[in-house]
Every structure is written in structure tokens, then in C-alpha cells.
């Protein structure tokens, strides 16, 4: 059974917890938007740059691999940060 949701002692903590969570989430979504859309606007120019040794045109690479790697790392980083916030505010699961 869950504990009572409206325990008054928890209220101030709740506000701080949600603020921290919001900040982290908006940061993550911002990074997501940057690598989903923004960098690809410059694909034609970036294609002029060739990655050394591997020879990928940078614009193509960002859409085919670069952004994907960022997404994977971003989610694991987000989980890590969120767990820290959970612990800091004492709302993490047992």
C-alpha cells in the first residue's frame, strides 16, 4: 500500500523535487531538439567537412550516427541525474 499522498510534512520537498525534475527534463528535451532538428539544418554545409580517417561527410554522419549516439547517451545520463534528484529529495524507491 502506498503511503498517504497528502502528508503535509512532504509538501515543501515535493515542490523542490518537481522543480529540479522539471529543470533536468527541459535540459534533456532541449538537447534532444538540438540534435533532432537544429544541427540538421546545416547538413549541406556540414557535408563539406569530411571526418578524418573514416571519410564520412559530417552532415550525413550526424543524421546517420552522431545524433543517434547522443540520444542513447542522453537517456542514460538523464536516468543517472534523475536518480540523484530522487535520492536527494528522498523520493526514490526502496
Amino acid at each position, binding site marked *: 500500500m502506498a503511503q498517504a499522498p497528502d502528508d503535509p510534512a512532504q509538501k515543501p520537498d515535493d515542490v523542490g523535487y*518537481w522543480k529540479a525534475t522539471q529543470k533536468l527534463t527541459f535540459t534533456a528535451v532541449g538537447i534532444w531538439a538540438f540534435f533532432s532538428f537544429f544541427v540538421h539544418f546545416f547538413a549541406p554545409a556540414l557535408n563539406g567537412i569530411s571526418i578524418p580517417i573514416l571519410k564520412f*561527410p559530417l552532415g550525413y554522419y550526424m543524421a546517420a550516427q552522431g545524433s543517434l549516439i547522443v540520444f*542513447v547517451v542522453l537517456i542514460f545520463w538523464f536516468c543517472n541525474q534523475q536518480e540523484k534528484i530522487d535520492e536527494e529529495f528522498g523520493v526514490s524507491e526502496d
Partner: protein
Amino acid sequence: MSVEQAGGRDFLSNLGRVYSLYTFSFLGCVIVLAVLEQVGMPKPWIGYAFVALTIGVYAAIGILSRTAEVSEYYVAGRKVPAMYNGMATAADWMSAASFIGMAGSLYLLGYNGLAFILGWTGGFVLVATLIAPFLRKFGAYTIPDFFSFRYGGKVARTLAIIVLMSCSFTYVVAQIVGTGLIGARLLNMDYVVAVYVGLVGILVCSMLGGMRAVTWTQVAQYIVLIIAYLIPVVILSAQQYGIPIPQLTYGDVLAKIAAKEAALRAAGDVVVPAVGYINPSFGNPALSGAALWVEYVNYFGLILCLMVGTASLPHVLMRFFTTPSVREARKSVGWSLLFIFILYFTAPAYAAFAKMEVYNNVVGQNLATLFSADNLSWIRSYGRVGLIQICGVDATTLEAVRTACARVMQHTGDVASFNPTIQLRHFGIQADAIVISTPEIAGLPYVIAGLVAAGGLAAALSTADGLLLAMANALSHDVYYKMIDQNASTEKRLVVARVLLIVVAIAAAYVASFRPADIVAMVAWAFSLAAAGFFPALVLGIWWKKATTQGAIWGIVVGFGITLYYLVGTRYYAPAFYETWKGLSIATAAQFQAYEAAKAAYAAAATPANWVVLDRTAQVVANWWGVRGISSGVFGLPLGFLVIWAVSKFTEEPSQEMQNFIDEIRRPKGGVVMEDKAASAIGH
């Protein structure tokens, strides 16, 4: 309950050992079949052995995972560890289209095809940050459960069921069509027989054990599909570059493709896409004004719709109900994307290697060589099943192609001795052929082709399982249990769930047996429909306490409605749509003229043939600001948010009790919200 049961406690604590053993056994079987092929086992037998073997294993897992408990049936008892849920989600997510079709789309579309790579991965960031942990904390069995709870009652639940069914049904039909095509093309089975083999494969996995069985089969299916996807292209890369990492070596291939395209252009051949393989259409210096805008809005609009659609599709979201905790739910989204990434960052390598093969060994060869050279036997193999065309006809026999080429090239002399050089513009390849033909291009034994068939089947079956479960659960849990008979016993609920699963599966297989071309195209609709219908109400329901019931209902109706209107209107009622929205249409002057000419012709003589022309030309001009149907979520999505916000402002804000519940959903600590509420409801 026996201890050996998949999903039982012993099984859960030995997952690593069980699936390692499974993986090595599978590789062992591949090696045994490879040896048998060398000693003369006929090819069709090898193909059938793969199908029988893999479906047999899935069936065994399905039967071992049978269950009589409601929470096991709907959410696998919420016991699936993050990494394994990630694997299951990856298999759930990657469909027949991802496995067989995506590399081919990249081959045909070049850079613009990467919208699918980006769109079908980036959405998981939204799932992890905005949605999954909160839905897990809420503790729903289905997505409509959440809508009903948050937006109070039957209207919201009914709307959610409608959106869910309309996203999922065409999608599942496409998966079953996929099993039929894989059977027909790779294993020379009859298409309809392959469809029903697929149906059996789906039902044995899901019927007895529901979510629990589907979870553990999907993990097994992921292992098969990823091995099958990687092996051919890894060997190809090792052959050509000595490095078995195609994801790195294809950079050099891209550079060579660009150089080759420049040479072809200089020689007067037509390069497709015109802007070059590595360049986006919106980077075409020849475009400006409205034509440039159309390229931008469709490329980035498609990425947005696919991403937000990913974050809204019920069969994906429901997988995150199965983890033991909120923390694991978040983390399992990361695992999901990692496992998906392995396939998606390999697909462009497939496409590049195939492109290079065509440029190096097909373009510039004469016809006789194409039909005799040993290293080009794949052209004949896939020409016979309609995947490769030369001079506009299937590359079946030299005679047929020679006649066609003589006509296309306006050859006037003796046809029998005509031996033209084949240019890029004469060579056509279907998207599906790229992955299927790679084993043969690399000169690999047939056993690898059988492996690819098994992988494609695994991709199609695992996605179909997830979709069917999402639909059948919506019907049995949301329609039957929540709306028709709230006092139904556990046994009765599970019987109803299974019967509905079979009914939906048979309906889908029946539709698939007609090979509906339209249905496959409609799959792309699912993303825009889900994005516009679910995403705004889902996100605001969690992130904005003041979102009201009225707001959500109108938001879903307007967002989903406008998307559906646009999709159906531009596709099936194009002339009427264009006449209604003339002022918003973007197209070239030539396209408008073609439509006006067709309209005049139809006005003069209302024949069916004239109607076909009118409809075709109208589909080109029927649009709002040049947005293609596949990206139509760009209208419904923002509108959905706007309507929810505006209506919520004018309606009474949610009760304090509801706002407290939202607080609870946001806080990982404590039990699930929904079951608590159900328990207290019983206590009343």
C-alpha cells in the same frame, strides 16, 4: 505453477544464463545448417528448417509462459528487468519495415531517408523524460486506463480506444503482409500460406501467456533478428575492407559514391536522388522560395511526426508498464534505444554497400554480362521475384529485358543481337531487395539467406505480437471489463482477453491475405495519428495539473480529427479537398496546369479513365502548404496542445483530489496509483 515456467522465479534469476544458452544454441543451429548445406541439403529445406526452428522456439516460450493471473497477463507481473525489457521493446518496435525495408529506403532516398533513422530513434528521449516513468508509477494496464483516470470517465477512455485501434490495426496488418512477403520471396512459399503460418506464429506466442509470454518471446526474437541483420553486412565489410565493422567502413563508401555520382553526371546519366546520395533535398541550390520550403517542412516535419508518434504508440508505451520500478522503467528506455540503435546505425551501411555494388558492377556493364556473370547472379534471382527491373521490366530473362531495352533505347536494328550498356537510369531496384540480396552480393551460402528470412520473420512477428496485445487488451480490459462487466471474474476476463486476441488476429490475417497495397502505405499514418491523438493529452495530463477533462476531450477530437481529415482528404478525396482549400496549396505551375487540364477533360467526358487522371493529378496539388500526408501530424500536434490549453482555461480546474494524484504520479516513491484507487473503490 511449475518452477520451469518462463517468467517464474527460477527463470527470472537465471535470465542471463538462459538467453546466453539460447543464443549459442541458435548460432550452433546456423552452423549445423551451413554444414548440411555443404553436404547437399536442398535449399528449400534449409529455409523451412529456419522457419520451423525459430517459430518452434517462440511457441515453446509462449506455452511455458502461460498464465492464469490478470497482472501476469496484462503487464508480465511487473517483473521484467530493465535490460530485458529493453530487448523486448526493441523487437516490439522494429517491424518488418525496419528490418527489410529501411535500408532500401535509404538506398533510394539517400540523405532524405535518414529522416526515418532519426525519427524512429529520437522519440525514445521523449518517452524516457516525459512519459514512461510517470505511466509506470501510475500503474495502468493499458493506455486508455490512464486517460480514463486522469480525464475522468468513459468519454476519454472511448476516445483513447478509438485512437489506439486506428493506429494499431493497419500496423498489424502490415506486419502480417510482411511475413507473407518474406515467405514468398525468401522461402518460395505461397503468399497466403505464409500469411497463415505467420498468424500461427503470432498466436502461439501471445495467446496463453499474454504480456508475459510476449515479453520473453520478444527477447528471443530480438536476438535472432539482430544476429541475422548484422552477419551479412559484417562479412561484406570484412571482404571489402578487411574490417568487420560496416558502420565505420561505409564512410569511405560514401566518399566513393559521391565521386562516382560526379562522374556519372559528367557523362550525362541521371543521378537519383538528383541532389546526390549524401545531400539533403533542402540543400539543393537550384531550389528557392516555395519549392525549398516544401523540402524543409517535409523533412523536418517527418522527423517530428515519427519521433512524437514513437512516444505515443500504445504498443511501445505499454512495454514500460512491465518493469519492477519507476527507476527501471526509465533505464529500460535507454536499453531499448541502445538495442534499436544497433540495427538503425547499421542500415545506412547496407544501403551504401548496395549503392556501391550497383555503381561498380552494374552501371556501365552490357546486358549480356549482367545475365551471365557469376557475381551478378543476384540480379537474376531477385528479378524473378519482381524486386529488380531493367529497362522497366522484371529482370527475368535476357530475351525479355533485351526486347524492353530495344524499345526504351529506340533501337532500330536486329533485336536478337542487341547488347546495350546499362546506365543507372535503366536499372530499378525495389526497396525490399537491398537487405534480402546482400548475402548473395557477398557471395555467401544460402544458409545466410535463410538466416535473414528468420530475422525478418522475427521482426514482423514480434511487432505483430505487441500490436495485437495492445488492441486485444484495449478491447478486453477497457471495453469489456471497465465498460461492460465490472464484476467479471478473473477467469472470465482472461477467457474474454484470449478470445478477442484470436478474433483480432484472424481479422488482421484475413485482411492481409488480400495483399492490400493501401494498408501498407497507411502504416505511416499511424505515427501522425498517434502523435496528434495521444501526445498532447498524455504529456499535459502529467505535466500540467490544470489540464481539464473537457480540454483533453476536445484536444483529442480536434488533433486526431484534423489529422485524419487531412490524411483521408488528400488521399481519397483529392479533387474535392483541393477545390475546398485551393488557396493553401503549394505545387509547381506545371502541376497546377496538369490538374486543370485533367479537370477540364473530366468535365468534358466523365469517364472512369479521366477520373483516374483527375484523381492522380489532384493528389499532387491537394495539400496545405505543401505538407505530405506522412507528415500531417504537424497540424494536429500543435493544434491538440492549443485546444487543450484554451479549453482548460475556460473550464473548471481539476479537483484538489485529482491534483494530489498527479503529485503522486510524479513522485517515484510509493506504490502504484491506479491499484490503490481500485482497492479503495472496492472498500467503499
